């Protein structure tokens, strides 16, 4: 019976050399291994190629106007309206007000990308916070939050964003808000479902019954297990947000002319469709390329990381 009460350490004899070396080491090896897994996944062609395309678009939009010393997208020359691509001085032509189309395309891309990423980040952060709160607190809080999500989901996305955008007034930040709020319910429900799944797993039961503080359980167990799914979903949502932004701008409720976005460029181009089809095709193509590359990154990354497990 004496062994029963002896502190555990005392009943253990010495460690092997390898283990003794491990004890004096650090956790860096583990982090290196994780980073290596991610690097392998990102460098695989099915991820790297669409990622490169997306990064080229982003860099072109944000650094391009500066590097190429493009003219302002809003100060046009009324003598040079509706020039076709390849015209001297205007590589992609001009619009009906004589603004340089290349400049408009890149400046417009900035807005579209900012709105896409911003609205997604907003929905992700607020939605996952509310969703995890619903799953982790009492029944009353859960019911209130979940019915709120249901109410948000009851509106078709574009209609909800339309109402909000109309209510808030058209500018970049309000557009992000309007689209982001639409995303809250989707992220929230996903976070809720994922958290419910994790909180009944045995490792959480063990931690809770041992008295690990709630904060540590949420940050240590819940968030790391819930986030990968949410981030994967977020990559898809960026494309959706950009589409909605385009829709809002198209309807005149998003970012207003003359400040260009891909959405309002498409909207403005429709009147000149037969005269100057490039005004429609160019921003539409950019939108498709960006959304497609992001979705491919999201899809392939998920597959590669699953394979690594």
């Amino acid at each position, binding site marked *: 019976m004496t062994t029963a*009460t002896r502190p555990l350490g005392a009943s253990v004899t010495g460690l092997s050399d*390898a283990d003794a070396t491990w004890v004096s080491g650090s956790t860096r090896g583990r982090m290196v291994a994780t980073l290596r897994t991610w690097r392998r996944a990102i460098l695989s062609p099915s991820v790297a190629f669409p990622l490169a395309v997306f990064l080229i678009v982003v860099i072109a939009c944000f650094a391009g106007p500066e590097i190429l010393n493009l003219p302002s997208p809003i100060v046009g020359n009324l003598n040079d309206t509706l020039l076709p691509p390849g015209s001297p001085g205007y590589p992609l032509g001009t619009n009906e007000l004589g603004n340089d189309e290349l400049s408009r395309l890149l400046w417009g891309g900035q807005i579209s990308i900012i709105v896409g990423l911003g609205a997604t980040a907003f929905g992700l952060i607020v939605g996952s916070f509310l969703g995890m709160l619903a799953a982790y607190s009492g029944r009353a809080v859960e019911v209130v939050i979940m019915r709120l999500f249901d109410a948000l989901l009851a509106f078709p996305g574009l209609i909800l964003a339309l109402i909000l955008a109309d209510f808030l007034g058209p500018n970049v930040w309000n557009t992000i808000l309007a689209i982001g709020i639409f995303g809250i319910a989707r992220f929230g429900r996903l976070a809720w479902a994922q958290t419910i799944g994790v909180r009944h797993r*045995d490792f959480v039961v063990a931690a809770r019954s041992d008295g690990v503080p709630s904060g540590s359980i949420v940050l240590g167990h819940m968030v790391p297990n819930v986030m990968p799914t949410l981030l994967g979903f977020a990559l898809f949502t960026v494309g959706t947000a950009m589409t909605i932004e385009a829709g809002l701008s198209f309807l005149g409720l998003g970012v207003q002319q003359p400040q260009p976005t891909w959405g309002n460029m498409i909207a403005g181009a429709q009147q000149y469709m037969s005269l100057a089809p490039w005004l429609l095709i160019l921003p539409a193509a950019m939108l498709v390329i960006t959304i497609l590359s992001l979705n491919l990154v999201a899809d392939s990354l998920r597959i590669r990381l699953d394979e690594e497990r």
Partner: protein
Amino acid sequence: MSLPTNTQIAPGRQDSVPVVLEVDDVVQTFQVASSHPFRKATVSAVAGVSLTVERGEIVAVVGETGSGKSTLARAILGAEPAKKGRIVLHRRGGATKKNGQAKEEGGRGIQMVFQDPYAALDPRWSVLRSVAEPLRTAGMTSSSERRRRVAEILNLVGLSAARFADRSPRELSGGQAQRVAIARALVSNPDLVLLDEPVTALDVSVQAQIITLLYTLKGRLGLTAILIAHDLAVVRTLADRTAIMYLGRLCELAPTDDVFHRPLHPYTAALLTAIPPKIGEPARERIHLKGEQPSPLNPPSGCRFRTRCPIAQDKCAAEVPEWREIEPGHHVACHFPLVDSVAVAVAER
């Protein structure tokens, strides 16, 4: 979050007082939706179970699926506090916290080993981090101290820290993962370990390794544990005392050898005849139980086993059999416990 618990932490008694856990008339019920639209049905999962566990002893709780043995374990752990009854843990040292209080110093003194080792380990945590978690809770703040303790405990369960501690659970085999889960349960030197079907999810060859490991740990550490199982062979190897559970109640509790050689409850006797004979042994006469275990939604009156009992009488339906100590240390809940001759006949080996 203060976890609701009715596991009381008793003032630290001297180690010479051997009782670690007292479970007294514990009742656990659950409300479930019923066919009636406005009424909920009550599942009587555990209906008045009492037992004690002494220091250095392994007590097995055996029963078929739905007998309430895991529910009992979860109530003892505090994961789902019991609706009624008293569960008292007598801790080493001086912790004197009572139920309802937010946090006990140094964890709660009970750890659990789960059936599925992969569910018991966070897939995103390294072995080191998982095993060290109870140490953090117990207030070991120095990470180098934690590393040392984790290395020691991994050695104790037969894993090299250098090879395994930085792995993630998916890089472990089932047996290795269960060793890690056992290491996690033991690392903070708990007063009591709940082993909830620790080998059921494993391959047969691996089962033997884990049973051997637990047997060794019992000898080396004087492991105090409750072993939830339905495999009688596992119980026989590890348990000092064995309790047989049926539909939320204990039928019989006795030293393991007595349970196997002189069962007093007809259900125990029937279970024992279901063990396949060893090669070369003559086949035993099976006691075939009629029907299936009744639903805990609507348990039989009186003795809960009476609907399937080969020797049931009218009295069994009318009165709940008392929990009696028929012989020293041999408890049974039966109006007509098997007297020696009958017992020998049914347990004939």
